[in-house]
């Protein structure tokens, strides 16, 4: 091989190497916190096969803003609400998947992603994407828990969003809940994965008693586990957005179908107080809406129970 060819080959190698090293997604916090909160759900990614209609849907309903990254080669948009980063959106049409995978994916904080992935494998979970660098954001692994619920493990580079007093803003993520086939098995797995303590509640509903488990770290409620309420539905994580009150919930639901979405569960009274509904966006990705007042506390919730 002559000198010129060597230079050409070297040039290609350098160009591709530079490409690989450039990949980076912004951190999930405005500034480095330096603190990791394993067991906290710190992020939400939306996979959608209708990215344009999805943006209109969430912008109209909740005032979210979608922001493309400067590098157009990266299939990722940031989602902001009132200036705060709350999630990301991926265009499913640009992925090689054969199935329609439109859905919301929760991002669970871990301190050691390699170890967490190993734990998940040993427990019978599936690893779709082994720990992978996202540059400034840190590392991600895309997995399914042993019962098949999809989630992402995130080891942030600069720290996780810190806990704040009071509820999140209206239109932001309020809660995350696993609909499991085997609640006890799910509890066992997630306690192995993260340093959770568990509080068990029995909720009286019109359909009878439902066991509900609250996963906590440092006395902070992080997520819930409940029996899968729908026959034949794959176990999955369901995220809840905060809605101010019943009037706002009704107003949102009135606009769901005109914007191309579906109402999966209409506004329904919760035994603990407030209302809940479940909707799907234009891609079919479902999300729950729950009313939550600014001063809602455990005591108030308990008083309202039957």
């Amino acid at each position, binding site marked *: 091989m002559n000198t010129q060819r060597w230079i050409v080959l070297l040039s290609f190698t350098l160009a591709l190497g530079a490409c690989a090293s450039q990949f980076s997604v912004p951190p999930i916090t405005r500034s480095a916190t330096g603190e990791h909160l394993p067991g906290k759900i710190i992020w939400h990614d939306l996979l959608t096969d209708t990215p344009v209609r999805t943006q209109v849907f969430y912008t109209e309903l909740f005032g979210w803003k979608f922001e493309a990254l400067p590098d157009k080669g990266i299939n990722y948009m940031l989602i902001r609400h009132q200036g705060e980063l709350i999630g990301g959106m991926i265009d499913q049409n640009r992925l090689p*998947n054969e199935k329609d995978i439109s859905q919301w994916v929760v991002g669970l904080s871990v301190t050691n992603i390699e170890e967490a992935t190993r734990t998940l494998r040993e427990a019978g979970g599936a690893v779709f994407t082994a720990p992978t660098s996202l540059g400034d954001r840190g590392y991600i692994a895309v997995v399914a828990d042993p019962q098949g619920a999809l989630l992402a493990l995130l080891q942030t580079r600069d720290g996780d969003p810190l806990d704040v007093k009071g509820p999140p803003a209206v239109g932001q993520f309020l809660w995350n*809940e696993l609909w499991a086939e085997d609640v006890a098995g799910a509890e066992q797995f997630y306690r192995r994965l993260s340093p959770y303590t568990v509080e068990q509640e029995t909720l009286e509903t019109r359909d009878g008693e439902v066991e509900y488990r609250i996963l906590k770290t440092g006395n902070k409620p992080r997520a819930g586990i409940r029996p899968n*309420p729908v026959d034949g539905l*794959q176990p999955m994580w369901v995220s809840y957005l905060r809605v101010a009150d019943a009037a706002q919930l009704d107003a949102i639901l009135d606009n769901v179908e005109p914007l191309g979405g579906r109402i999966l*569960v*209409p506004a329904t009274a919760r035994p603990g107080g407030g209302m809940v509904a479940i909707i799907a966006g234009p891609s079919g990705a479902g999300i729950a809406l729950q009313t939550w007042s600014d001063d809602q506390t455990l005591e108030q919730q308990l008083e309202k129970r039957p």
Partner: protein
Amino acid sequence: MKTIITAFKVVLVASVVAVLSGCDDPQVYGSVGISSGYSNYGGYHHGRYGYGGSGVRTSISVGGRIY
């Protein structure tokens, strides 16, 4: 000199192609094989459940944040 110019052109073209093709995107969701369950969820439309699927028969009367 000619060799250097050629190399420079190659780097430029390769870089542009690489960026445009998104070669640097690891596509972390690219091997997910789990579909959303909502397509089988049924739904609620004009006061009735069940359109669009065979799924839900009851409303979800619990769930969500407790405190």
